[in-house]
Every structure is written in C-alpha cells, then in structure tokens.
C-alpha cells in the first residue's frame, strides 16, 4: 500500500480529486459561510464546526456509496454521461436572479447546522460522483483525496472559493478534467470491454475526446447563453455638505 504513495500516478489521481472537489464545492462553501451569519457571535464558530463536521461525514458516506454503485454494470455508463453534463454545466454561466425566496433565516444553532448539512447533501451529488470517478474505485485514493480537500473547503470558506469559478481559465480546465474523468469511466465500463480489447490507444483517446467534447459544448452553450447580467443596486447613501460650512 505504501509504495503506492511514491508513484506519480497516485499523486496525479489525488490532485484530480482535489481539483474536482474544490471546483464543485463553491456553492457549499458559500452556504457554510452564510448559514451562520444570523447566529449570535458566540455560536457562529460552533455552528460552522458542527455543520462542516456533519457535512464531511455525510460526504464520505455518500462517496463510498457512489464508488460501490459504480462497480455495477451500466452504472458507469450512466455516471460518465452525468459527468459530461456536470462538466458542461461548470462552464456555463449561472443564473443569477436576485429574487426573494421564502426561506427564513435560521437564528438558532441547530437550525444553521441543519441548513449546512442538508445543503451539502443536495449540492454535493455532482461532487461525489466526480470524486468517485477520479478514484477509480481505490479506497485509499478516495480517503486521501477527501481528507485533503474537505478541510480546504471548510476553512477557506471566506467565499474565496466561489470566486475561483469566475476565472474563465480555471473553469474551462475544470470542465476538461471532468470530461477526461468521464471518458476514463466510459472506458472502464464492463459493457465496452470487448470493444476495447487489443486497442490500448482508446484508453487515452476516449478521455481526451470527452474532454474536448465538454470544452466544445460548454463553449458553444456559453456563447448562446451569454447575456449581460445587470448589476443590482443595494445601498445608496448621501453625506451632505456640513451645515456649519454653509452658515
């Protein structure tokens, strides 16, 4: 097991997991940071800590679950197609409607923790699938990758993470990576085993093609969707000239 740590393949796979995890966790990080805002000062740190702890536990369980599901026939095919879509969606600009929701702000510790954990459950499905795919079913890889990346998400959650996905270069690279991982999963699908026999070049050609597919689709859809999002006015204030100056 230990000699695995010294191979470059291992570190390449670990960095894939970390990158995917970071790129797909922006929204989760924002929820973590904002969910505890309405708590009394003293409880905020506690809320973040418990919320993140619960979310980490949940995320690990879900990821293991996904890994074992992916060993079933056909599901790799489904997973790969989903991943292609997740990659394209990463590249597309988000809808940023400035609407009034009807969610009430949680002013209690347990409410905030609940919000963090439920949000993480709902929003980490893409993430879990990506990480599971990048791990190729290796538990060691999976645990190592999650252990490194989850604390990064939790404690750098000063909303900086969300900004990562504003960098056009990073999201395109991330989309390509997700496409590549989807391709690897496709190649690993038991259904296609016979097709791949004797054609080892397909093991890199398919992932590369998938990466290019995500880039092309993402770029094309982003172009079509490109619309100017108006800035929203939030605060307007005025400091008048001092009266005594006029007198």
């Amino acid at each position: 097991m230990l000699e695995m740590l010294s191979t470059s393949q291992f570190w390449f796979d670990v960095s894939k997991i970390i990158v995917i995890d970071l790129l797909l966790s922006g929204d989760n990080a924002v929820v973590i940071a904002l969910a505890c805002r309405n708590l009394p000062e003293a409880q905020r740190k506690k809320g973040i800590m418990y919320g993140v702890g619960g979310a980490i536990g949940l995320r690990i369980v879900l990821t293991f679950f996904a890994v074992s599901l992916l060993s079933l026939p056909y599901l790799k095919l489904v997973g790969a197609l989903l991943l292609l879509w997740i990659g394209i969606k990463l590249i597309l600009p988000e809808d940023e409607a400035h609407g009034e929701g009807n969610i009430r702000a949680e002013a209690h510790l347990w409410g905030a923790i609940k919000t963090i954990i439920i949000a993480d459950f709902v929003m980490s499905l893409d993430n879990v699938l990506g990480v599971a795919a990048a791990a190729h079913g290796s538990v060691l890889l999976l645990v190592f990758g999650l252990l490194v990346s989850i604390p990064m998400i939790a404690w750098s959650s000063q909303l900086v993470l969300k900004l990562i996905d504003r960098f056009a270069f990073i999201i395109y690279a991330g989309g390509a990576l997700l496409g590549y991982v989807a391709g690897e999963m496709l190649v690993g699908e038991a259904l296609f085993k016979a097709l791949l026999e004797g054609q080892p070049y397909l093991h890199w050609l398919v992932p590369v093609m998938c990466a290019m597919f995500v880039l092309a689709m993402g770029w094309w859809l982003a172009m079509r969707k490109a619309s100017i999002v108006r800035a929203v006015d939030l605060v307007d204030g005025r400091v008048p000239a001092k009266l005594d100056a006029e007198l």
Partner: protein
Amino acid sequence: MKILIPVDGSPNSLRAIEHVIQSVAELKEPPQLMLLNVQWNVAGANVKMFINQQTIDDYYREQGMAALKSARDMLDSDGLPYQYHISVGTPAEAIAQYASEQEVDRIVMGRQGQGGMQSILLGSVVNKVLHQASAPVLLIK
C-alpha cells in the same frame, strides 16, 4: 461635475480619493463625488435554495461598507459631501453601468485594485472599465 470613484478598499483606490481631494480646489465648482463599491455576486440559484436573500444582502452590505470605510473617513475628515453606493455584480460591468446611469463626467480610479493573480486571470477591472465606460477615465498611479 460628477466624479465617480470606484472603491475596493485597496491602497490604490485610496490614492484615487487622495487625488480627488487634492484637485477639488482646481475645479470651478465643488464636484459631486460618488463612491461606488461593487460586491461580487457569490450566491447563485443553488445557494438561494438554502439562504434567504436578506441574509445574502446583509453580507454584501457589511462587506461593502467595510470596503468603503477608509475612503469615507478621508472625505469626512475633509468635510467634503459625497454619495456612496454599493452594487452587486461583476465589478467592471457594474462600474460602467453605474457611470452611465448617473451620467458621470469622469471616473477616477487606482491603476490597479485588488490585483495580483486575480487580475492576471480575470483581466483587470481597469482594462474592462476603459473599454466599457463612455465617460473619460483618469487612472491614478
């Protein structure tokens, strides 16, 4: 004369304020000063499923007022009247939009804001404002 000064709280943006304060005397009439801080929109549709708009806006307001503070202190201590504004969006676009809505006569900004890696990857805010705003832009080194 309406002068718009985008402020992100960085030393460079404060130099723009300094410049404006110093040049007020050169103007025939006291100018109408407008401070603008833009907060990145960090909450997409996903986040809004879990966090209500008011909490998100409170966050923007807090961050925005903190970014405006030093600039406001400088103007306050000189007793200059001004307006301040916080909007949410993409900085360069929001600056250009506000400038045209308010029909400002001039935009004064630091040559570089919260730069570094961010400006390399995003393209600097200054560059985009130069292209998108119709008002003349004065850059302060």
